[in-house]
């Protein structure tokens, strides 16, 4: 069965600095990888996904993620963080089935 690990509960960055939120996965077969963001008391909003093709995926709000098959990773990145990026971020993986597995989440705090 597929699984996802987000090794950091919390990431703190200064506004204007680059940010990275880490995600590693385990799946048999080809992975379908997703990033979601959750603001306080809201549902999850889709940011981006990797299905196939280019390993660098660009998504909403200036975020991007790089699929690395050899390291089984799909880290979320942004070149210049904003205070408004502060939120809870979830990585998710799906195999060929409809069963999607989510990580425990990483809380990103961007300080002015």
């Amino acid at each position: 069965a597929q699984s996802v690990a987000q090794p950091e509960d919390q990431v703190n960055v200064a506004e204007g600095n680059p940010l990275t939120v880490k995600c590693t996965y385990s799946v048999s077969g080809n992975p379908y990888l997703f990033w979601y963001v959750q603001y306080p008391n809201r549902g999850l909003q889709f940011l981006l996904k990797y299905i196939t093709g280019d390993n660098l995926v660009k998504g909403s709000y200036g975020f991007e993620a790089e699929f690395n098959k050899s390291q089984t990773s799909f880290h979320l990145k942004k070149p210049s963080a904003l205070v408004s990026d502060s939120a809870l971020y979830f990585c998710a993986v799906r195999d060929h089935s409809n069963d999607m597995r989510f990580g425990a989440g990483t809380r990103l705090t961007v300080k002015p």
Partner: protein
Amino acid sequence: DVKVTQSSRYLVKRTGEKVFLECVQDMDHENMFWYRQDPGLGLRLIYFSYDVKMKEKGDIPEGYSVSREKKERFSLILESASTNQTSMYLCASTGTGPGETQYFGPGTRLLVL
């Protein structure tokens, strides 16, 4: 835009009450899901449905049941609410195919006293 709506944003219920959480999606998606979200545990799948009148257990179905009488509506039922069911409940829907994005509703924060 995909829209997934949930009937309540906040609910307060008493132990032993029967609780209904409703979810409606407007994108004609075949697949619908109910998750609960707890701090440090991420999202855990309670039940999902691939079609009308069809349901499958997820990872934590105990104490819950579901109903899908129409394609757009998926209901989660707590037969007899307990305090350990205090949580954030999230509904999601998606089309067929593993590459399809899951779209989430705004969530229902349930407090069981």
